[in-house]
């Protein structure tokens, strides 16, 4: 079987290369272990690698300050390779074999849904840093990214306002998976509640990594020609955004005519693009690199020093990990242990300074209170904030605009102790 020997050798080389990228999981007696579950290869590597580095930076920083509870903190990195079932396997490996105390990870909602049963079965803790569709609250997950009411709804409200151009007609573009479909369901219900007619909404889905946008962009143009101000709401995910924006630019669609507001495009995604033709297109996030606060300045400086590249940008999910990690550290200190149940109790009401000048709070529905910012793309690939909420917005796990969800409450403290209940589990009579 000579040829198979070769294949095996090839695979061994591939395996060895992948192995090099993982931090060796040496068993040390007195360490606290932090699991990092982000794809370092495959389609999502573009976004998730940065988050792995963010956690490594935070761990590094914590150790320089003397560790946690008198112990050294160690990051255990695994690579789920953008492969959704592999996420579940790697999560199990982290919790049972590597015995980590907490996990920071996942990007796409599919991957989160895939690891969810593992975390619930083994009663471990996951910090999920990305904006998502909501409609979920697990006892074992803390959602540090934006819920739809912290991103999608304010963005659409802005475009409806006079400053945003008073849009009357809507195109909902998305990648074909759970996040865009659920978000658009919520948006559709929201638009209807604002008396937007069915014929004024166009919905379109494309596969992951879609690269031929000619037809869709031409259709958007046609749809916009009906005499009402049109706006595009994009939940296009991953690197399909690059050819999408290129096609927009080439077909001469300017933000002044048809603005595109995106929920998955941040500084990192724009880094691979010539942004000159895209000036004015929008994004809604809870953080922009361009925000001028001393906390943000310090964070960017630390990031550049850690990654040894002055050109690297920061983005919203990085801030989410920053907040999540700091909250977890505070909760562990308060609880005096890394025991999952004790830390979870300590997490509620935990406050951390965010990077945009406010103080974020962890609520009992496992979602954060954060400010909402809307920014316009500039020539240098950064966003200029053109609108922001006055205070913090409490993340809402269950959307008020979907009738069956509006009834549900997520509250993991007494008397509710539930992620999706109509009435409390522990009734006080």
């Amino acid at each position, binding site marked *: 079987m000579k040829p198979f020997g070769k294949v095996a050798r090839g695979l061994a080389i591939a395996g060895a290369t992948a192995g090099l990228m993982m931090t060796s999981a040496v068993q040390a007696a007195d360490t606290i272990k932090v699991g990092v579950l982000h794809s370092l290869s495959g389609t999502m*590597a573009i976004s998730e690698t*940065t988050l792995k580095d963010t956690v490594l930076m935070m761990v590094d920083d914590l150790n320089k300050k003397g560790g946690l509870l008198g112990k050294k903190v160690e990051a255990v990195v695994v690579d789920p390779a953008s492969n959704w079932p592999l996420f579940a396997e790697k999560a199990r490996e982290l919790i049972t074999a590597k015995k980590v105390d907490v996990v920071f990870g996942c990007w796409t909602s599919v991957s989160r849904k895939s690891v969810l049963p593992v975390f619930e079965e083994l009663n471990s803790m996951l910090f999920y840093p990305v904006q998502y569709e909501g409609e979920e609250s697990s006892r074992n997950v803390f959602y540090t990214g934006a819920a739809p009411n912290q991103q999608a709804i304010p963005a659409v409200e802005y475009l409806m306002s*006079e400053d945003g151009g008073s849009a009357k007609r809507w195109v909902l573009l998305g990648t074909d998976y759970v996040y865009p479909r659920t978000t658009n369901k919520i948006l559709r219900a929201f638009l209807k509640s604002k008396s937007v007619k069915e014929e004024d909404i166009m919905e379109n889905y494309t596969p992951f990594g879609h690269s*031929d946008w000619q037809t869709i962009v031409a259709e958007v143009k046609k749809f916009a020609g009906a*005499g*009402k101000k049109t706006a595009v709401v994009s939940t296009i995910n991953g690197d399909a955004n690059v050819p999408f924006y290129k096609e927009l630019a080439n077909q*001469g669609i300017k933000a002044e005519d048809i603005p595109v507001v995106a929920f998955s495009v941040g500084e990192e995604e724009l880094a691979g693009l010539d942004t000159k033709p895209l000036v004015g297109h929008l994004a809604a996030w809870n953080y922009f690199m361009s925000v001028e606060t001393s906390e943000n300045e310090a964070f960017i400086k630390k990031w550049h020093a850690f990654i040894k590249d002055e050109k690297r940008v920061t983005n919203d999910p990085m801030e989410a990990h920053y907040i999540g990690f700091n909250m977890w550290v505070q909760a562990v200190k308060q609880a005096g242990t890394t025991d999952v149940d004790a830390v979870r109790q300590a997490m509620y009401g935990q406050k951390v300074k965010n990077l945009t000048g406010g103080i974020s709070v962890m609520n009992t529905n496992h979602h954060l209170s954060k400010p909402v910012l809307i920014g*316009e793309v500039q020539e240098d690939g950064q966003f200029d904030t053109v609108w922001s909420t006055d205070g913090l917005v409490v993340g809402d796990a269950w959307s008020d605009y979907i009738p069956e969800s509006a009834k549900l409450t997520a509250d993991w403290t007494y008397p509710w102790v539930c992620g999706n209940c109509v009435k409390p589990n522990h009734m006080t009579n």
Partner: protein
Amino acid sequence: MRAALRIIALVIAAALASTAAAQTDDATLTKLVADLGQKSFSKKSKAIDALFATGDPRVAAILEAMLSRNLYKQKSDNAILVKTKKDGKSVYQNPLTKTAIETTSKLKKVRINNKLRKKLRGAIGSLSLQNKDPVKRIAAADAVFKSRTKGMLAPLEAALSSEPDDAVRDRMRRALSAIQLVHKSDPEVRVAAVKTLGEFADPEVRGLLNSLLVKRGDGSHAEANVTIRAAAEEVLTAAERSAAFWGTVQNLFQGISLGSVLLLAAIGLAITFGVMGVINMAHGEMVMLGAYTTFVVQDIIRTTAPGLFDLSLFIAIPAAFLVAGAVGVAIERGVIRFLYGRPLETLLATWGISLVLQQFVRSVFGPTNREVGTPSWMQGAIQTAEGLTLTYNRIAIIVFSLMVMGVLLLVLRRTWFGLQMRAVTQNRPMASAMGIRTGWVDAMTFGLGSGIAGIAGVALSQIDNVSPNLGQSYIIDSFLVVVFGGVGNLWGTLVGALSLGVVNKFLEPYAGAVLGKIFVLVVVILFIQKRPRGLFALKGRAVES
């Protein structure tokens, strides 16, 4: 919107009344400029209107600085400064006197949003309607058309009366009619404006006319006057008829464009798989290597000779061919030649190679996408009045793919190497007996196929992401095209790619991108059931062996 326009009009009228002379005194102007630094966008908008209404010749430069985000507010006294570059350094100037100012106070950028951007473009346009350059005058008229502010009526009429160039006059008349339609109250003028706009009937004009026909929530029409609605409807129905035809042309172009991308991705595979019979799963990675070669070439050009940037793709083409071709030869000599006649093992080995190559590129260039710039001649599009949009990058790729196809056919048919290649694939022992070094020919053929895949990577870097996964998204499509077109037949690959592209694009508007692709797959599967050898089956003895 209406109310806002009325307020703006009032502000302008008031401003016009107060400023008799064109040259406003500096104190007033400084105060108006300072108003640009207010936080609220609607207040900034009013400040722009007031500045514009002064008609002062210095206003255009200030508005332009605001548009390019070079206006700064000094925090200490709220004065507005203009940032300019001098010898590569940023210098701050007084916007009116242009004297340089040393500032120690904190500066805050004056922010603008889409609405202000549109307004600024319109205002700057209307101030440059008398520009010497006719191209600039056309751009100015178009900007005025887009913003349609009432205050622009007078400057536009003045510019139109003295305009010598017919083409520019046309654009100005278009802009003038749009403003008349929106802001005038005399129904006769407005009907005439609709008629004038009917001469143009491009998508922008159609959008404007359509907005007259919109029904409000309470059932009333946005445009109360029936005669004007009827006139607009007449123009639109006439335009609609031609729009359907041009829509089909647009679809056809998009289909051919998708087909040309498929052709480029598949044409190398048509050689390694089609002619040699090697199931080469690493084909996509050759495309990826080509794309990364383009990135490296551009990177070198950016640092050493930025002037050559527009030619970077032409330099990248031979480079990508050599890099991918060399890797191809190495793979053939190192692995594949031991596996001829064992398709399953070839498949596994090449798949392994593809993983190794991906990880190699990921380790060297990092997991994030690399930006490959588009030369200026490939940006933008030809836009016709009928609404047809032909983007330059797509046109370039269609032409390029046909050229690659042509050159490849020439090599196979007319060169000594092509002859040897065909001899070896048709009858290896006989070719060997005639003194052809079959091993060398195998290596070169595989290298040729890989090199062409590398060239495809140069083209694909212009429309897709340059990431380690670039190849994976094309490998399935490439096999589909080669099998559908007929294994071993280049013409089959051409016809297969173009027909799959066109069918896909005609389905997409109805079925969506996801379902459309599934439908095409099902059709190809059914077709292969009927004709297992594809569209253009090879006949003769070579097939039987």
